[in-house]
């Protein structure tokens, strides 16, 4: 009987461990500093997590498909710089689709290399991290990019606007999460992503076009990056070339924290959203208790290691238990 109860709690922890940890963390910090759960603070955290969050949604597809995407940070810088530059030359209405098209080309290129040529995704996207950074600098000439007339454009809507009191970035993050969650969990394509990431050979033996599925995961990732770039550019209306630098690791941390396996084949959009929020609230909480901003970098790394360790430990304990 005790054994069964233990298995029940253990099972809950293994399945929803991250969620439980999140709730415990929120309670502890809320007691330490009541401002932490103040509605303005919560809304602020979600809003500032939205850009990272949208990127993490796309990377979730890539990771479930069994690959990595380390290029999203510098790709986001690229999107931001490009859309800001085109804003003043083409006008916002054309700048946005043009920026999406260019970003999707980058995603297609990566998807081609990883999906069709079967190159290692770590190497490809690590290389693209650097290459895209180069493209961004070439585009901008190394200068910061600013919109000339910041007050005379509607472009700030995506980063600064709000609808019925809810900030637009939060709405976009929520909308993207709902749509992509449906794609991943309900469509035939989503099913194939899980199959390809879970066992690519078996997927091929079941007639799943593996290369095309991997290609599409990178397209989705790029579309999310473009959306994030739009939000970023719209919020700041001006930007440095390095605005997305380092975000690839935070994004990956959020995805893993949510419980997607780096080996592919598991994870959900909902879990990734939880991962994003945990990361956002932890960083916010650390600021509120008076730690310096720089501590975040160290803490993010510690969280990644903890999450991976929890994941691996849970798997190992499952491996040793018999198959019932």
């Amino acid at each position, binding site marked *: 009987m005790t054994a069964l109860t233990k298995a029940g709690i*253990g099972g809950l922890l293994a399945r929803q461990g991250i969620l439980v940890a999140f709730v415990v963390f929120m309670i502890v910090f809320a007691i330490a500093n009541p401002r932490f759960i103040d509605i303005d603070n919560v809304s602020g955290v979600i809003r500032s997590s939205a850009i990272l969050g949208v990127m993490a949604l796309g990377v979730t597809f890539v990771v479930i498909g069994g690959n990595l995407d380390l290029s999203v940070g510098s790709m986001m810088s690229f999107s931001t710089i490009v859309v800001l530059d085109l804003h003043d030359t083409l006008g916002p209405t054309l700048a946005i689709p043009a920026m999406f098209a260019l970003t999707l080309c980058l995603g297609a290129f990566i998807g081609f290399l990883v999906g069709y040529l079967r190159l290692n995704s770590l190497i490809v996207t690590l290389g693209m991290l650097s290459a895209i950074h180069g493209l961004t600098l070439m585009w901008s000439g190394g200068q910061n990019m600013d919109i000339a007339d910041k007050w005379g454009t509607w472009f700030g809507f995506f980063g600064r606007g709000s609808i019925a009191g809810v900030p637009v970035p939060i709405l976009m993050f929520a909308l993207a999460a709902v749509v992509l969650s449906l794609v991943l969990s*309900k469509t035939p394509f989503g099913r194939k992503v*899980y199959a390809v990431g879970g066992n690519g050979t078996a997927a091929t*033996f079941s007639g799943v076009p593996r290369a095309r599925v991997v290609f599409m995961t990178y397209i989705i990732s790029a579309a999310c990056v473009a959306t994030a770039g739009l939000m970023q550019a719209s919020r700041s209306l001006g930007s440095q070339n390095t605005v997305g630098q380092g975000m690839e690791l935070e994004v990956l941390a959020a995805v893993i924290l949510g419980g997607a396996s780096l080996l592919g084949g598991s994870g959900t959009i909902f879990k990734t959203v939880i991962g994003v929020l945990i990361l956002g609230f932890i960083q916010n909480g650390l600021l509120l208790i008076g730690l310096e901003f720089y501590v975040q970098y160290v803490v993010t790394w510690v969280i990644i290691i903890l999450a991976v360790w929890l994941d691996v430990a849970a798997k190992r304990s499952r491996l040793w238990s018999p198959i019932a």
Partner: protein
Amino acid sequence: MTQPVLRLEGIVKTFPGVRALDGVDLEVRPGEVHALMGENGAGKSTLMKVLGGILQPNEGRIYIAEQPTVMTSPIEAKGKGVVFIHQELSLADELTVAENIFLGELPRKSFGRVDWARLYAETDAILSQLRVRFDARTRVGDLSIANQQMVEIARALTVDPRAVIFDEPTASLTDAEKSVLFDVIADLQKKGVGIIYISHRMEEIFRITDRISVLRDGSYRGTLVTKDTSEDEVTQLMIGRSLDLSRNASHHELGEVALEVRGLSCGHLYRDVSFNVRKGEVLGFYGLVGAGRTEIAETLFGLRTPDAGTIRIDGKEARITSPIDAIRQGIGLVPEDRKGQGLVLGMNCRDNMTLPQVDGLTSGPFVSDGAEIEIFDRYKDKLDIRTPSWRQTVGNLSGGNQQKIVIGKWLSMRPEVLIVDEPTRGIDVGSKSEIHNLIRDLAAQGYAVIVISSEMPEVLHVSDRIVAMYSGKVMREFTSEEVTEDSLIQAISGIVPDRAA
């Protein structure tokens, strides 16, 4: 009476909610080959993990040479002379044979330098006992699987073993290689080493073992003396009933030719292969590993491109360049490597079964849960798949039920031709006969079925006709009336039959 080298007494191992071992006894005498048998999930692996120090028992004791012993790690087990030879090889491909054998305990000279001369000399001494044809300096990755297994055995011989445990050692060996292995086992026997031999293969068990202990559902069912028992008795002890392996040709009318292959060739893999299968017929492909059978199946399924030849499905010439083409034209393949090629182990039963047709099971943009569950339930009943729910992760099912999921995957596509490669590899005896009956049933329902197998009793049992292959060529085709075991063995060994006889 000599004292046993190894004795397990009343071993109990529980996991949350499950009693995996329920008071198991096992005794191995010096110079004895002791078979450990049981269906998959009967507790053999758990028992061996307890013996090897990987798992700690909740109750019971282990005696080595009648000394009570606590095993806390595999290294300790090895130190006490209990050595395991695993089914799955654990060798480093890039290292030499010698380095693999002495991995972690390389002989040293001063300043920690490796004493290569001594390493190679000691390795060659061990290899000569095994009568193998490679030397200490060979890179392990260059060896065949069988020879790699010999390296694994050589590793066991570096300590003076008291007891050696062989876990399904012949799974990937040819007959010639098997007999070398059996010689090695006989040598160990002469030295007074006790041997535990785990296998599903009855013929081997009866050829080399002295006693047989049987486990069922984690409990000890008894020990039989091999020469005083029969396959039937062992099977009954294992599954609680006996198994039918008689010949079994179709009694129903055969339909039209479903698949016709003419002059198919693919590089050095196979040449000029021709055969056909009719609806309602089971065509067996028999031959040694490497004879080209699996490669033909892969070609029919669009995974390989042939150099020459034609494939006709239902009389129409078919061009197949990818599995998607093959599936569209009515070919289903149950591959030989169930876990690697057949299933996405982390996915649930239903999703695995409907994977090839998931594009067609939609309402609007979304997969229709209802349509999927309907397919799953239909084939769950039809194939008698035992799982609590479609939500169950496939990796948690037994081998037999996993195989039924793969078969159901293709049946639900209503294929013209179903190819089943090694239908019962790694499947326990009880489920084997279920799979065999299932294949016969499919033929009776009018499916054209191709069965590829390396087990002669299986081919003889399920096939209406048998194609015998040797080294990429079709040697001969037999009907189930004319085939004999001798002529079949001759054909797959490349001996041209004497027509006059």
